């Protein structure tokens, strides 16, 4: 093979790899984005609708709403305007507490969020940024 042909093979394979990657990225982005909503937004958007996609909801855990039976956990999450009931099967994170900020990932069915993951990674003085934004939006932010 002459050098030119060899060079074009390399260039061609580079373009090929780029094309494949672009396809992979676009395809993965299409399916794997999880949108983040407040309880109010969730109810506006999805109440009594079929929704197949995973979503994240952020807010405060409603006081005295926690109910545990074996590993099944039920509680409600609120943005001080609307609340959504959550059901979860698993160990709650260390920082999960009533009245504290929480982010829940899962599937919203009818009026219940079936959680697949509960994220409460932050310390008590610190609010997850998303939750703080939601509370600010609803005018219920009491902090700096």
């Amino acid at each position, binding site marked *: *093979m002459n*050098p030119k042909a*060899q*060079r074009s*093979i*390399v260039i061609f*394979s*580079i373009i090929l*790899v*780029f094309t494949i*990657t672009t396809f*992979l*990225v676009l*395809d*993965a*982005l299409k*399916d*794997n*984005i*999880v*949108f*983040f*909503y407040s309880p109010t937004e969730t109810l506006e958007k999805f109440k009594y609708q079929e929704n197949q996609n995973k979503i*994240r909801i952020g807010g405060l855990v409603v006081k005295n709403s926690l109910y*545990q039976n*074996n*590993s099944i956990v039920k509680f409600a999450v609120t943005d001080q305007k609307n609340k959504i009931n959550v059901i979860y099967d*698993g*160990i*709650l994170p*260390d*920082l999960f507490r009533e009245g504290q900020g929480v982010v829940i990932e899962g599937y919203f069915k009818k009026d219940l969020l079936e959680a697949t993951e509960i994220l409460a*990674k*932050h*310390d*008590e003085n610190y609010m*997850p*940024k*998303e939750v703080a*934004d939601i509370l600010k939006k609803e005018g219920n932010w009491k902090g700096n």
Partner: protein
Amino acid sequence: MIYEFGHLLLIFALFFSFCAFFPFGLNIVNFCEKNLLIIRKISNLNFLFVLTSFLILEYGFINSEFSLNLIANNSHTTKPMIYKVSGLWGNHEGSLLLWILILTLFTFLFSINKNIPKNNFFSNILGIQNIIIFFFLLFILFLSNPFQRSSNPPLEGLGLNPLLQDPGLAFHPPLLYVGYVGLSLSFSFAVASLITKNLNQNWVIYLRPWTLFSWCFLSLGIALGSWWAYYELGWGGWWFWDPVENASLMPWLIATALIHSINVAEKKQNFMNWTILLAILGFSFSLLGTFIVRSGLLTSVHAFASDPYRGIFILIILGLSTGIPLLIYSFRNTQKNVKYFLFSRETALLLNNLFLVIATITILIGTLYPLVLELINNSKISIGPTYYNRTFAPILIPFILLMAIAPFLSWGKSGIKILLNKLLIFSGLTLIGIIIFYFLKPSSIFAIICGSLSISLFISVSLECFNKLNSNKRNLSITKRLKSLPKNFFGMIFAHLGVAVFLAGVTGEQFFKEEIEKKINLNDKFKLGKYEILFSKINDVNGPNFLSKSAEFNVYSKGKFIKTIISEKRFYPVERNQTTEAGILNSFLGDIYIVFGKGNLNTGWTVRAYLNPLVSWIWYGVALMALGGFISIIQIIRKKKIEN
């Protein structure tokens, strides 16, 4: 008073690094030894200043000097000594001071280096280092001053996030920072090569050990962080595709590409432009990493600061340090046309670079896409591990295969016949390996792929060792044959072996893992793989600065007692925070990992247990890679000594 002195030293350092601009500028126009001497003196002096200032702050942390805001917010008198010391870099301001300390240390080490000729190129590198130092000092003094006094000092500090009170995390940031900051030297090399006239093409030889050095530390830092996440977060995983983890992985991937492209540049005077570009990008990604972690734009355990000015400042540094060099870069062409063959080591390394850069881009998209989308239409999204499994992982498949085959190719033109011969043996052995692997009953096609890649790499490495020792001068003794091998051979072998070990660990952890989660009471038993586990005891324990509920689990295998695993839930009263200390029974072939949740004697406790086969191999693998890097550095230094 002493703290004001520490503050003053930083201001001095800022002033001096600014002064270095003038001799640097003069040297670009017309090189003069005297100017260079001034820059070197400034570099050495600045290291001394920053080091002293750092030690003064450390003294404050050790003595719990709460009149400094930083210490009051991040320390506490009851904290064990090691966390008082490491508390310095467990926060934004302190970690930045550590960043600058390491930056000046590297500059100092470079300035006193005897091997590199003291010419205009050397002067340019030091000059650029001083510009970087200047900007970071500006940043720390005006936007994140660690020496800020409070008007009414508290009697007691707020304490350190309990998750960070761990030996693993005491050493994770310094290692990582050495890696990040070390890449600044590669960056300065590249930029200096762009502005230096009459540049000798051999400059890449000097770049190599420095890049290797930071790459090794970056590897160790990332591995330590991942290990910490594994045993401390209590989620059983070791990599979460968290933006902050991505931020450290991206410069690592670019640095890996850089090491390989330097190889070609050094041997073949090829890839010169590309090497320069990678060196610039490597440091850009380091800065981006700092930006992501420090800006508070992305929520994460690691995000300490949420002051938008800091983010903007780092963004400006990032923009300048990437933009200006790339601008010069686009006007320069240092490349000579070199003869090029398709079946050669060069092609393999070119593709290696291609894959690494593309892998970096996919991570970059996944990390920044949520940010960009929020800026555009204010919708909040998150991108989970599935994204990376479907983009990053497929790219790794051809990459690892290439890595297995590449050592069989020679520089320049490869003899097709010899190559085919080697490939035939390689494929045969790999096939046998895969068949044996198949009897372990891999659970899915992905398990087979991942396992096969690891096997092919193991075989490639052993074949390569065998070939090199066998073919080279058959009549010599083993030790002489070992000595006649190329100088970076062992480094490469260890690093590639590390990747194979790492992949074996990933295969075990991802595809052969067993997991159980159930509610159990005292003296209940449950089964995990071939083990039986008995929940035998629960105690209250008082630690130095925490209260803990500790659960004991006895592990039995075939009725025989093996060991007791202690799993804890700690409560830190000062920080009013709880942490999970997973109980881990570590062995070479796998871990038993137990976490317990909430509960009491009446209802029992929720317990989650994992059997993670080969999980430690993930970190052994990275350690081997770093070892490979260190071996290469030692051999470069030894070779230089022989030459002198």
